[in-house]
């Protein structure tokens, strides 16, 4: 009987942008941009050059599927070992140095000046891509893995400190309050109420960063900062694509193994 008394009302999902004029302008602008962008690309595609490059492409692919691990085995071994060394050293040192920056960049526990200093450092270390920083360090400390290791260490500090500071800002304050109320000192407060809350994420991020650092170490070699990347670049410029294929296969294998390990560690600590 209530059916007759309740008037029919319709409902549909509210649109993301309320104002219909602005909504349609945004939609049309996105479509227009996509169309224009497509025509720009079309003008840049040059059939002649694609045709010229085709035999090289075929050679590249056929060599890739028959990788040659042995001709340059010595160089590859040195490169891989260098990369692993850079990865382990930069992750280890970077993670340890990131701890004070993590605490300093957390607004809820750091005094204002310390906070601003730590945040500035983190922003600077995250502003420049690793490859640019590596170029600078190659100039400063010369070619080789040292430049790469310093670059990765700085990147690690910025990465870990930023994410950890955010985690520290999200902790349960009542646990901090309770520990303070016992008469604990500042370092005791950190050890008893902050570290237990953020340790799992810290371990997870460290494992994740180890895996990022190895992948980065393969790139940094291209600008002369040591590691497997240098060997990779040499083989490419010599058109030794079979060696290139072998190096890529090795990088993929190591990255996969690292990813499995870091995934396992992260799953265990959560």
């Amino acid at each position: 009987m209530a059916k007759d008394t309740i008037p029919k009302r319709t409902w549909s999902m509210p649109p993301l942008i309320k104002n219909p004029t602005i909504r349609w302008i945004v939609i049309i602008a996105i479509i227009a941009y996509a169309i224009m962008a497509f025509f720009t690309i079309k003008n840049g595609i040059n059939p002649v050059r694609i045709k010229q490059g085709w035999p090289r492409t075929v050679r590249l692919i056929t060599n890739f599927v028959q990788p040659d691990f042995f001709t340059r085995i010595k160089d590859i071994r040195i490169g891989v070992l260098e990369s692993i060394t850079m990865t382990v050293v930069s992750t280890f040192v970077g993670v340890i140095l990131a701890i004070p920056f993590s605490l300093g960049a957390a607004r809820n526990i750091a005094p204002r000046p310390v906070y601003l200093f730590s945040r500035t450092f983190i922003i600077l270390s995250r502003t420049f891509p690793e490859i640019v920083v590596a170029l600078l360090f190659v100039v400063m400390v010369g070619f080789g893995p040292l430049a790469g290791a310093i670059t990765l260490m700085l990147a690690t500090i910025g990465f870990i400190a930023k994410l950890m500071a955010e985690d520290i800002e999200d902790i349960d304050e009542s646990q901090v309050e309770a520990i303070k109320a016992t008469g604990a000192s500042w370092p005791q407060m950190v050890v008893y109420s902050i570290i237990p809350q953020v340790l799992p994420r810290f371990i997870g991020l460290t494992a994740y960063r180890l895996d990022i650092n190895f992948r980065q170490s393969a790139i940094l070699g291209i600008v002369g900062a040591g590691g497997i990347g240098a060997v990779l670049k040499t083989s490419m410029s010599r058109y030794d694509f079979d060696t290139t294929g072998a190096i890529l296969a090795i990088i993929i294998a190591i990255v996969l193994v690292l990813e499995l390990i870091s995934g396992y560690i992260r799953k265990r600590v959560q």
Partner: protein
Amino acid sequence: MAQTDNMLEIINLEKRYKTGDLALSNVTISVPKGEVIALIGPSGAGKSTLIRCVNRLIDPTAGQIILNGEDITKLGGRSLRRARRKMGMIFQEYALVERLSVMENVLSGRLGYVGFWASLMRKYPQSDIDEAFRLLSRVGIDHFADKRADALSGGQRQRVGIARALIQDPDIMLVDEPTASLDPKTARQIMRLIIELAQENNVAAIINIHDVALAKMFVSRIIGLQLGEIVFDGTPDDLDEDMLTTIYGEEDWEATIQKVEDEDEEEI
């Protein structure tokens, strides 16, 4: 005016927040050694602010807090931490460090007494460990010593919280809504435990509590706070219908005033 035999004297305490809100004004309370006081009042009356001013988790803007002859409002750094050791705090949501074990949580009550390295390596003096086990068995959960705090139920967690406060060897316990997150039965068990332990150890306590009936059941002195001011300070019997209306506003208080029947209970 201030008698010397009172363990804690709160004199003309005022707290004004940066936003300009006056949370406490002209609060004066004397607490003799070993006395248990219930602090009642509506949400926002300033109960939590008051007990947090006593151990300086919140800094009062005016007034004095004299604990054993020492003005706490003047302290800072090491001397403040030393004063905090003598004040155990118990929280509404237990505020245990979730990922630490029950034992670590209890021992954290000794942080004010042990050095940094000892606390980092969990090397507490044997006397602290003995006391921790004694307290855990007193509150009935010594078999959980190595469990993680987040594996316990609400009532069990609050027992850990009580043990953590008492291992500080405090002169006073500051208790912030100890039962608000608990079911009625557990709430009574926890209230009873706090009162018994305060008496056993001759420790004073200020207990913030929403539940007026529960307060009347367990304590001999009640203080009513309204909009940051003390509007009542007396025995449970003095707390009549008119007084409750003054503190909380108009409501039917008949059921609250009637004596609450104490029920049987089994431990935990």
